[in-house]
């Protein structure tokens, strides 16, 4: 595939880059869109400010999913969140995937496009998992160049999320937050701060989650994720199948104080409860933000 033909072709695109990399707006308090809630959302008006959609669920030829998404985006701001960008893979980028992502973004006009700081496979295989990376200078240089390429291809700055990890590599040369900070500074990408993932990784690797929180530059964070997990005693698995736990609510309060007003959402991927239960969690996020950041409430 000819990569050059897929890059922005004119000098004007460079001038546009500044506008395209403008900081995404504050959207309020949202929810991950799931098929189980389609009817309830479309037939009612749940008090949710915006929806995040899993990009791959709509990278399809046609049918009901895309039709529903068209109707959702007529009523709510939408953000695209992918799981297969594999930005940290050392394999060549999948340009067919990128083209599909760009086509969907053109159709949906999301407020931003996000994915994860991870890789999903090499040698043409896809493990469909958010795999960890060593926090080395070599990895950082590689990921910076990949982010720049993807941003040029998509014509917009992307947003990258910290993932939950279960292992740490012995050859790390910096912390995860130092890596994310450098990545954002050098590539211009924005950061999605997953509060639950910070909690999970901090527990799994034995560091204070507040060190992570304090180590991330406040002006680069444009979104929070809130989610639940499964505690295995000696480690935590990021299952996204439980309500947000008290400790993560506590870390959210600290994140509000550190980062201020940030678009925030509940991300439930499994064991999907009735919409009301998730709306209650969205309301709790909203109320906590109103208390902690009274001047920005609403």
């Amino acid at each position, binding site marked *: 595939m000819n990569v050059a033909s897929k890059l922005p072709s004119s000098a004007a695109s460079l001038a546009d880059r500044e506008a395209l990399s403008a900081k995404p707006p504050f959207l309020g308090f949202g929810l991950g869109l799931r098929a189980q809630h389609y009817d309830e959302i479309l037939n009612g008006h749940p008090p949710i400010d915006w929806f995040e959609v899993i990009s791959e669920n709509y990278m399809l030829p046609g049918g009901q999913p895309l039709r529903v998404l068209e109707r959702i985006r007529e009523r709510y701001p939408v953000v695209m969140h992918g799981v297969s960008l594999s930005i940290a893979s050392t394999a060549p980028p999948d340009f067919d995937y990128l083209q599909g992502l760009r086509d969907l973004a053109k159709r949906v006009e999301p407020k931003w496009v996000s994915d994860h700081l991870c890789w999903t496979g*090499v040698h043409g295989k896809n*493990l469909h998992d958010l795999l960890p990376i060593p926090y080395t200078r070599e990895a950082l240089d590689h990921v910076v160049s990949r982010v720049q390429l993807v941003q040029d291809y998509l014509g917009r700055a992307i947003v990258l999320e910290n993932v939950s990890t279960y292992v740490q590599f012995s050859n790390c040369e910096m912390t995860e937050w130092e890596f994310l900070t450098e990545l954002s500074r050098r590539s211009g990408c924005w950061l999605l701060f997953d509060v639950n993932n910070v909690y999970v990784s901090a527990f799994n690797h034995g560091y204070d989650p507040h060190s992570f929180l304090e180590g991330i530059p406040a002006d680069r964070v444009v979104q929070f994720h809130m989610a639940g997990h499964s505690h295995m005693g000696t*480690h935590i698995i990021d299952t996204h199948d439980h309500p947000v736990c008290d400790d993560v609510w506590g870390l959210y309060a600290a994140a509000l104080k550190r980062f201020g007003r940030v678009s925030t959402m509940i991300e439930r991927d499994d064991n999907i409860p009735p919409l009301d239960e998730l709306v209650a969690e969205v309301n709790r996020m909203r109320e906590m933000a109103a208390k902690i950041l009274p001047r920005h409430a609403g």
Partner: protein
Amino acid sequence: MSEFARQQNDFQRGILSGDDSILAEILDSPKEKREVLYGVYRHAYGSRLVDALRNDHGLLHSYLGDEMFDAMGYAYVAAKPSHHPNLRWFSQGLPDFLKTTEPYSDHPVVADLAALEKALNDAFDAADAPVLELADMAGFAPELWNTLKFQPHSTSCRLDVSTNAAAVWLALKNDETPPDAVALDEPGRLLIWRQDVTPMFRELTAEEAMMWDEAANGIAFGVLCSMLATYDDPDGAAARGAGYLHGWVTSGLLTGVSSGD
């Protein structure tokens, strides 16, 4: 190969093949050994992909039960690693796998059932296209009818099965006990498509299946009627052809019609 690439290679190989060499580069955590922590990724790999199969093949899961479905699923995962970034397409090869892999190949109803579920899944998110209406047909003068050619709807698909998988599917869908699997004397000819947002299927007679397949090949209505005449009463061939065509149009199975060569 860079050090980073080498490390990813070893990490992936450890998940896919059970090789433990990557463990030498991973730390124990304060509370858990590295084998257990890395094992989270090993376990998640298979279970996530089998979950995807369960999601795409809910009725096959009901038919086989948890234990047999999981054994089948893990065998498929081992034989057919995912090469597509979208999990939606992982199960595409399952019917062929079941058709060609023992012990599943000894029970052809399993592959047939998987093929029917796959066809319905594919219809669910197939490309949208206009639906031909009866009014669109009314515009053609009678003398043009023999030259009409029909374009199947983008969601439509034909499937031949060698077993009573359609009856099994229907029973499972209605939460009823499925009939015993039997081999059919002649293939079951199924037509699958999407009506609005709902995937559907129905069984065709040999005659209607022939007409559908040949219409999809671009054969004009007049020739189709001549072909129908070889299946049954030649005098009624045109009426039967018009009847099938009416059914296709009212079911939303066609997207276009044109006259001429």
